[in-house]
């Protein structure tokens, strides 16, 4: 029994290798890389954190600058030119009012 097992194994081991056709690798690579890679949820969280933390000092400075400019703009007195523009617009608006025409 042992001898016939050994002979069978040797026969199986000697069987020639089966090779893929030449263009199969290229076909598989083309097919697979057309598909998007799937990532687990924690990968997306990690990526979002990475993106957020990239250049954090610059982002913080930009937000602070916007805040300061907003406060300054709110406190600054409106200019004469701007007031004239508003008055002109209101005059036109009144002149074009259909009830007054």
């Amino acid at each position, binding site marked *: 029994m042992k001898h016939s097992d050994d002979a*069978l194994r040797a026969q*199986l*081991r000697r069987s020639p290798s089966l090779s*893929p*056709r030449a263009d199969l*690798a290229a*076909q598989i690579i083309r097919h*697979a890389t057309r*598909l998007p*890679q799937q990532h687990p949820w924690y990968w997306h969280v990690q990526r979002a954190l990475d993106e957020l933390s990239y250049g954090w000092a610059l982002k913080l400075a930009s937000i602070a600058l916007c805040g300061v400019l907003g406060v300054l703009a709110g406190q600054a007195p409106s200019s004469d030119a701007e007031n004239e523009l508003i008055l002109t617009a209101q005059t036109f608006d009144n002149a074009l009012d259909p009830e007054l025409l």
Partner: protein
Amino acid sequence: MSNSPGESDEALMARVAAGDQGAFGQLVERHLPRAYAIARRVLQQQADAEDAVQEACTRLWTHAHQWQAGRASFSTWFYRILVNASLDHARRHSSRHAIADAETLLAELLDPHADLASAHQQSSEAAALHHAVQRLPAQQRMAVVLCYIEEHSNPQAAQLMGLHLKALEGLLGRARKQLRGWLARLHEDDL
């Protein structure tokens, strides 16, 4: 981007996980011959073997994050995917008992270095052996291919098939018994 030919599977896999298509190409080129040989011996049709290999390689790309260095070697991880894909194909097509196209198989098995007469004799014997292996149930067939043709150790093959070692040895024992019977009958018919 580095692209050294001697890069380990694990290093390439780390690059694949980062979306490197070049590294993926290298891994496919490196493992395709062996992966195809396993799938082709387990599945009756050449097209099914190609589908199974393509499925395994595609999963290697799309699910690259699932491979974790240190938990298992790349080979174990990839060939386990291939074994599952091949067995799935074998189950799906179990109702289709078509014997593989004999001429295609003979052409695949033909040794280019042998003279025509002896090459045909050898390839006929190889085809007969291939058909005998094909007649085994899918799990036994996979066990025979992994252990006796691809020469994995029994524990390695059991790991790839997700089986206990004793279960694998049982499959091999039953497969040997059936193959011995079939091949002996084949020789009797030849005489």
